[in-house]
């Protein structure tokens, strides 16, 4: 279980996260929704340790995988090297073969088995997404953090991402997804939190609403009006 207690984070005196507390159950899929700048990426980055919160605590024992919005594959390595670099760095030679086999199986499962020898520059956005996912799965994470996994992808590829994440979820991996794509989040998540100005303003379970996206959008409208009034 991931416990986030009262964390706060500010950049240049602007609060990006303000007293956020979340408990995430094992093997659940949590969505973080909210407009740009609402703090959802910062929350993910704090969980991974890429940012240090100014206040509060984050408790989690387990391996964490992180999928970056722009993938951040290593461009000078082939797809296979991207996958096996971390696990094989200090492995013995027979173990290395196992990791290579594992990587090839993963790539096949994700439908990009033929691309193992390619460099990332030769792949499409959807293929890079799959490689990024495969790379984060190589370390057998217990928790997978996905930052905007659907940004820049077409509708067909987005439904592929849903299918892929469901596959990952079947391995008992807890997943947290930050995205502004409400329909996507509703389709895949057990629970969705809406962030605004660094605070959680809604916490819903799609199973309990007939139209979660619409319900959440009402918060968006509210927040838009709010913003207009403030302006």
């Amino acid at each position, binding site marked *: 279980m991931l416990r986030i207690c009262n964390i706060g984070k500010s950049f240049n005196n602007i609060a990006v996260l303000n007293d956020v507390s979340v408990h995430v159950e094992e093997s659940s899929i949590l969505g973080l929704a909210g407009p740009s700048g609402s703090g959802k990426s910062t929350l993910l980055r704090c969980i991974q340790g890429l940012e240090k919160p100014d206040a509060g605590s984050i408790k989690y024992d387990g391996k964490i*995988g992180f999928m*970056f919005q722009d993938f951040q594959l*290593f*461009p*000078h390595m082939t797809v296979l090297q991207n996958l096996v*670099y971390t696990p094989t760095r200090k492995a013995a030679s027979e173990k290395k073969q196992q990791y290579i086999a594992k990587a090839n199986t993963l790539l096949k499962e994700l439908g990009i088995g033929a691309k193992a020898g390619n*460099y990332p520059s030769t792949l499409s956005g959807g293929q890079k997404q799959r490689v990024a996912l495969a790379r984060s799965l190589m370390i057998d994470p217990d928790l997978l953090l996905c930052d905007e996994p659907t940004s820049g992808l077409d509708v067909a590829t987005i439904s592929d991402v849903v299918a892929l994440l469901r596959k990952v979820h079947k391995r008992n991996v807890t997943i947290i997804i930050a995205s502004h794509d409400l329909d996507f989040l509703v389709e895949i998540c057990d629970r969705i939190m809406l962030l605004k100005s660094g605070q959680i303003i809604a916490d819903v379970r799609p199973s309990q609403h007939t139209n979660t996206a619409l319900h959440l959008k009402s918060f968006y409208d509210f927040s838009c009006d709010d913003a207009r009034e403030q302006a």
Partner: protein
Amino acid sequence: MSKLLSDVFYIGSGAALTMELLVGGILLGLALGVVFAILRRYRWARPVICGLVSVIRGTPVLLQISIFYFILIPALFRCDLGIRATGIIALGINSAAYVSEILRGGIESLPKGQFEAAYALGIPPFYMWRDIILPQVIMNVLPSLVNETVSLLKETALIATIGGMDITRRAQAIAAARYEYFTPLCIAAVTYYALVRILEFIGKKIENRKLYAENM
């Protein structure tokens, strides 16, 4: 004609010292330059590295060679390391300042996400630099590094001031002995130019060896 040939041979044999200084200097420069560029990213080391780079870039190489030969090396090692070793140390440290700035540009132009991806995958700093960051940076700054090597080749001529018998010094020796400048100086110039063309050729070969297709 035989006089011309013997001049060419005499001056050309100075290329051995020139190349030793160049190869030694650029290897030392690269090694120290990488260390400087990486240390510069750590707050505690930054003032030291910045100060060092500023002083090295702010004083003439000619002066640096003399300072190393007459002051620093005798003071530090209590012996004469010889012209060649002194030259390599002085030119290498000078080059390191420029190489570190070239690398810094390359490091800062890499997406921050590459460092974060390495961190998220649990890659320790040494391996991150060696396997993830530096290979990309060096490919990206290769033209500037070739440029630095060519500059250093020409700076090796300053070794003449502490008595190194390199291409330039040998040409000057002939000129001084015979009061004849045109031939020896032309031979020296042609020799340098030929060496520069060889360096450029090697640089192009390395650049064309695409480490990854079409650079991202």
